[in-house]
């Protein structure tokens, strides 16, 4: 179904009306050029319904040219209360063709409006063109305040997410991950636009807007990260040492600090550093464990540990079985790593579906909802495909694991010893196969059999 079928095929909308709107002073009728432009710029969504709007146009007097122009710049409220420009932005978001300005527009609209009586009166006065300077200032302050709050919340959120990044650069909670990825994408786009602007390229109005908005959010952060970039090259040992030093200093400072706000900042920094420290230690331990498994199972120690023994020399079949076990273990390892990767994709997809479902709840019109449902359904199909892949991989892993398990039993029977086999089980089954619970289960089962 074509979403555009809901609305009449009007002429293409202009990009930035205020820059192009003709403002001939002679037809303004007492309103100064500056006031006229200010009115166009500041006019907020009026609660006028469509019927009243038609009557307004029908009853335009001699100065109708001005009135029509002003009216044309006033967002029209749809019957469901969503201003026309917000509804259009929502549609573009649903279609995936939204600009940053669209996203901001929708965000601001749904962020909730300040309903303080004075502000409401000031807005009404502005829409009628008879606001006092104080009322203009009040509305301007409110807009500036809301923008500043939103920006500061966004900065804090980004910093907080960064502090919780795991060593591999991901976040545990899929929803956090989706939000963090959006920030990174936004930042990348801003960096690209900055470079293009610096290179003297002419940017579109949308790009200029995105760049200006991005400057507020990323300029300072980018200056900060230049310091981080210098640190990236330091060795892991040096990084550990630096973080431990910072932790120690910050803890001392925090204990002495009287100001609650500064204390809270220090606690945040300590928590972030502690998380980073844990991450480094964890990744180091993981790497060491992996290296051990690889060395023992697939690397140089293989001969000495598994094959080049008195017992194995006596039995070619054992040699063959051990080789087969290693090959099966390698397959299992590969499958388990693939399963881990698919699991990550699945989590990201589930997060995306949840976000879409949440958005579905806030949709403006039935058509918007329909468009969004059309988006959600393919996501579920993707999810189902991923689940099928996981099932297929599990089936394959069972085949390898079954053979692996049979091999262990046979080797045990032939060698009549447990020492060597235990080493195989420990290193291969319980070590390298730790990624998948299902495969681990086989390793444990084999282990129990050998022990029993």
């Amino acid at each position, binding site marked *: *179904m074509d979403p555009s079928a809901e*609305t*009449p*095929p*009007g*002429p*293409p*909308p*202009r990009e930035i*009306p205020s820059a192009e709107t003709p403002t001939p002073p002679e037809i303004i009728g007492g309103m100064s050029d500056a006031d006229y432009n200010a009115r166009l710029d500041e006019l907020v969504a009026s609660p006028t*319904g*469509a*019927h009243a*709007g*038609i*009557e307004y*146009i*029908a009853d*335009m007097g001699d100065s*109708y*040219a001005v009135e*029509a*122009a002003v*009216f*044309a*710049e006033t967002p*029209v409220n*749809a*019957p469901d209360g969503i201003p*026309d420009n917000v509804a259009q932005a929502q549609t573009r978001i649903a279609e995936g063709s939204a600009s940053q300005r669209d996203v901001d527009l929708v965000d601001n609209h749904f962020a909730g409006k300040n309903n303080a009586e004075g502000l409401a009166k000031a807005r009404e006065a502005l829409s009628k063109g008879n606001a006092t300077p104080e009322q203009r200032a009040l509305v301007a302050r409110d807009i500036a305040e809301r923008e500043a709050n939103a920006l500061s919340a966004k900065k804090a959120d980004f910093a907080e997410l960064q502090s919780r990044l795991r060593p591999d650069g991901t976040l545990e909670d899929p929803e956090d991950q989706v939000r963090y990825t959006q920030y990174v994408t936004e930042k990348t786009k801003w960096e690209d636009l900055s470079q293009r602007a610096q290179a003297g390229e002419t940017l579109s109005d949308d790009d200029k807007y995105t760049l200006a908005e991005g400057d507020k959010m990323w300029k300072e952060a980018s200056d900060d990260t230049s310091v981080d970039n210098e640190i990236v090259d330091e060795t892991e040992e040096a990084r550990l040492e630096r973080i431990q030093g910072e932790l120690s200093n910050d803890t001392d400072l925090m204990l002495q600090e009287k100001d609650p706000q500064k204390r809270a900042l220090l606690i945040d920094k300590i928590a972030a550093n502690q998380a980073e420290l844990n991450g480094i230690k964890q990744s180091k331990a993981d790497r060491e464990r992996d290296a051990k498994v690889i060395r023992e199972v697939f690397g140089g120690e293989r001969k000495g540990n598994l094959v080049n023994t008195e017992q194995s020399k006596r039995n070619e079949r054992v040699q063959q079985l051990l080789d087969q076990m290693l090959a099966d273990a390698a397959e299992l390892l590969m499958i388990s790593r693939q399963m881990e990767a698919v699991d990550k994709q699945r989590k990201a997809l589930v997060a995306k579906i949840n976000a879409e*479902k949440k958005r*579905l709840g806030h949709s403006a019109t*039935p058509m918007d*909802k*329909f468009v969004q*449902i059309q988006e*959600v*359904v393919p996501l*579920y199909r993707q999810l189902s495909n991923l689940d099928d892949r996981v099932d297929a991989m599990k089936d394959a892993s069972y085949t390898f694991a079954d053979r692996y398990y049979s091999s262990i039993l046979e080797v045990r029977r032939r060698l009549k010893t447990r020492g060597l086999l235990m080493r195989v089980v420990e290193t291969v089954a319980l070590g390298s196969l730790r990624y998948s619970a299902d495969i681990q289960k086989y390793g444990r089962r084999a282990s129990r059999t050998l022990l029993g």
Partner: protein
Amino acid sequence: MDELKQMTEKVEYMFLKQLVEGLKDGSLQPAQAQEYARAFLKFEPFQNFEDAKAKMTTFAQQYPLFTTLQDYINAYHYEQKVDSVIQKMQEYIGQDKVEEAIQVAQSE
């Protein structure tokens, strides 16, 4: 809100939107917009769906620019049906029953 009122508001909204867009991009002169608005108001109020259909057909014949309004009224019941399908699909999707949601869409 009754159906006729709902439909009327929707048609008014679509009409006003077209006027405003025309004024914005200069394809419509204010005097023309005024004429269309006055003509439109003469057709109101609508007594019932059939009355609305007949009036909008006449209006669209007089002003072919607004044939979409006629199309909308003619398709109003179909739109209502689509709304109900969407509602059912939403309920299923809310319960994670995607296959059922797809079936609803396919069966309608």
